[in-house]
């Protein structure tokens, strides 16, 4: 069905994975972008979403082989696309709600450090609870319930959700604490509480993204929810401009596109007909350099501090004013 639209299966894969990546970067934006506190721990919530989804969607016939430690009642369950996403989001939100009770009371830097600890703790659980996660060997047998349209619809829904949150009272209060936590407190903002709300919501979306991702990639293993994933997601967020939801979407696109082009160059050994030496890891190095350049020349990301529609609006206004000026100037010269 999609063959008609996308000549290559790999392009389809790329686009679907882009939408899923968008969901994950947006989930990070909800907390990191609004609060200004870096979280290394969100890969843990993506992992929670993915494992919960695996437990709920792997066909019952092979479930016992894959998850030897699974309780009997769970072995009977095999759900479709939507319910596992909801349950994954709730599970991630619950985990974040408990962890957040401690983490959100900390000062900004301590909080960032503790999310790093969270990542390591979560990783050792994913890695060692082999009866339920199979650790680094990996889980397999998930159905491919996610398709292009479902992924796109969820990504769009996440954009709407994230913008609504950013504009909400609590979103505004979280952003004020990002700018100056002391002044926010003096203006009546309960900084701990609003950060906590952003943290839990953000984790819920991460869990949701993890579920959609797991239902596309058929199988996964514990190392996939570790430093590499967090760095990649944070890089996309920072490149796009972390204070904006559109920044998350554009950053995910930019990094995905550059990586993909470089990956193809690396595989085929040529770029626009030019011979390129085959060096493995070249793609990652170039992506890193591109990110560095953006951060040097545009530290607040591609979009800076304004949303895309705000930029478009300003551009249109300026163009209108310019045209109006052009139209009135000939008359002036006639008069003169």
């Amino acid at each position: 069905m999609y063959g008609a639209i996308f000549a290559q299966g790999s392009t389809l894969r790329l686009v679907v994975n882009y939408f899923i990546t968008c969901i994950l970067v947006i989930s990070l934006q909800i907390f990191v972008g609004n609060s200004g506190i870096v979280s290394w721990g969100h890969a843990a919530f993506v992992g929670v979403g993915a494992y919960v989804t695996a437990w709920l969607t792997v066909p019952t016939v092979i479930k016992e082989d894959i998850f030897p430690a699974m309780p009997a009642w769970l072995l009977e369950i095999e759900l479709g696309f939507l319910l596992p996403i909801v349950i994954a989001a709730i599970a991630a939100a619950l985990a974040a709600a408990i962890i957040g009770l401690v983490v959100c009371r900390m000062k900004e830097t301590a909080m960032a450090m503790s999310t790093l600890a969270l990542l390591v703790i979560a990783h050792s659980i994913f890695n060692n609870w082999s009866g339920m996660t199979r650790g680094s060997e990996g889980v397999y047998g998930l159905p491919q319930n996610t398709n292009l349209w479902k992924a796109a619809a969820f990504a769009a829904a996440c954009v709407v959700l994230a913008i609504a949150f950013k504009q909400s009272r609590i979103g505004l209060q979280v952003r004020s604490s990002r700018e100056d936590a002391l002044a926010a407190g003096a203006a009546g903002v309960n900084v701990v509480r609003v950060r906590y709300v952003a943290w839990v919501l953000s984790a819920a979306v991460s869990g949701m993204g993890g579920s959609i991702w797991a239902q596309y990639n058929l199988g996964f293993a514990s190392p996939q929810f570790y430093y590499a994933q967090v760095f990649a997601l944070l890089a996309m967020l920072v490149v796009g401009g972390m204070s904006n939801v559109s920044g998350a979407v554009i950053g995910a696109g930019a990094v995905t596109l550059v990586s993909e082009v470089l990956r193809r160059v690396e595989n085929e050994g040529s770029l626009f007909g030019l011979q390129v030496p085959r060096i493995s890891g070249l793609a990652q190095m170039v992506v890193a350099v591109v990110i560095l350049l953006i951060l040097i020349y545009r530290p607040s990301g591609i979009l800076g501090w304004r949303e895309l529609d705000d930029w478009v609006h300003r551009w249109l206004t300026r163009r209108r004013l310019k045209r109006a000026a052009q139209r009135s100037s000939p008359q002036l010269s006639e008069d003169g």
Partner: protein
Amino acid sequence: MTPCDTTLTQDVESQLVAQAVCMSFSGVQALQGVSVCVGKGEILGLIGPNGSGKTTFLNVVSGVYKPRAGAVLVNGVRVGGRSPHLIAQLGMGRTFQNIRLFGHLTVRENVTVGSISGAKRLGVDHASDVTSLLERFSLDDVSDELALSLPYGAQRRVEIARALAGRPDYLLLDEPAAGLNDAESDSLLKAIMAVRNRFGCGMVVVDHDLHLIMRLCDRIHVLAEGKTLAVGSPAEVRNNQTVIDVFLGNAVKEMV
């Protein structure tokens, strides 16, 4: 004698009261038994040499520091040791010595943040409040600009508007005229007076501009080395020999 003896017996329910507040930083006594009270609609000037404890006092009252001893009461509610946001929600607004705006939020968003807690406390709609405050402080033209892009004088106005948006009963202004020229300082004075008349809040104003303080304040509280040196009307303080000797010196003589 503490300066609050006469007023404390009156209506504590509608006053901001600090009783014998002590504060120290690793052994250094920043405040030693300072007592202050401000009624609604009253403007109190807090003056003193550098390091006399003026800003420390504001930080204790607004909850940034927990006092080592003594009590702070807002409308009769004891707030010692409560978090700043809880004190703000009781009706306390403040500005900072070094302007602390939400730089990457728009001017309107800055003021809106302030209005949310006030609206919650009073159970009113906050949007109309914000618009009228922006107009009052001539910020309506720049309401969609990022706060950090404004010139200095306008940033001072945003900070005061943000503090007022919480509809505070008491407003603490920490050097509102710092860095302003004479004309700006003059219009600030008028704005503060107008705010008092319009909102009826009590104010504590810390400033080095004695000319401004003398014209603005109903009462003046003089601090030196963390202790109360004198309290009284501008005329009384101006003629107090201890105040002249210890702190004011030439500045007052020039004015007289």
